[in-house]
């Protein structure tokens, strides 16, 4: 199925949000995730199952003033 992650199309098999983060090498402790514009608390990463057409934003902290 297809999902959109940070504006890019991704083809994935059905999996949880935490499974997806792991598959692309992201440490869940250092990021925040929005699924279809709703914040997903870290405690729900495991239980949240991704669906066709989901739009995900994954952000982290970078240098800034």
């Amino acid at each position: 199925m297809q999902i959109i992650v940070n504006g890019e199309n991704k083809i994935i098999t059905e999996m949880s949000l935490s499974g997806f983060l792991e598959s692309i090498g992201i440490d869940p402790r250092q990021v925040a995730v929005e699924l279809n514009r709703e914040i997903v608390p870290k405690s729900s990463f495991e239980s949240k199952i991704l669906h066709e057409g989901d739009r995900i934003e994954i952000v982290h902290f970078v240098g800034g003033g």
Partner: protein
Amino acid sequence: MTDRADKLIIAGREFSSRLMVGTGKYADFQQMAKAIEASGAEIVTVAVRRINISDRSKESLLDHLDLTKYTLLPNTAGCYTADDAVRTCRLAREAGLSDFVKLEVLGDEKTLYPDNEELLKAATILIKEGFTVLPYTSDDPIVCRKLEEIGCAAVMPLGAPIGSGLGIRNPYNIRIILETIKVPVIVDAGVGTASDAAIAMELGCHGVLMNTGIAGAKDPIAMAEAMKLAVIAGRLAYRAGRIPKKLYATASSPIEGIIE
């Protein structure tokens, strides 16, 4: 000697350093970490951005900041509407460890001046959601008063445009803001060199926030130390109470006993 009891208190949290620094524009994370260390800052600002999902080889900012030592202050840089700023703050709170946010809602790209109407809108929503809001604003006493009234934990008027290094362009407005506002007043943006930071502190500001003034210097680590000392010196001078300015001279040595 620095008075140990002279703490900066924001929303009930105590800080020993009155200098807050950004993490942007450094040559690399090592230089950034050394400059922050030299600045003595305890509050450091960070930006919230999309992670690069295709290239995971890059180091992470948080690997270079000891979070037991520093309080992160995520910003909403690059947001031009209240909605975008609120969304960014919610993500920042989830990514970070606290509800402190440096709220900025910009009006245009050329001046990076705040859009105070959107700023007030965003601040109102965020305060209802339990955020500790530190808003970057123009040096306008009325806007600062309104920000305090809706419950901001501090107000952060600009000294001059972001990254301009022009110093404190309107010290009179900063003085009026200081007379009006009870929450901490932190000059944010415009500091170019150590004397600018000292001037802000001598006016009675509770703190100074800067990024480019340090990161853009030829030797950022040395400038970080200069800023640390300037903030301490300015604060001490403010507390010591300066002499009034006079047009004519007053002799320092006694008039009596001059040889004839």
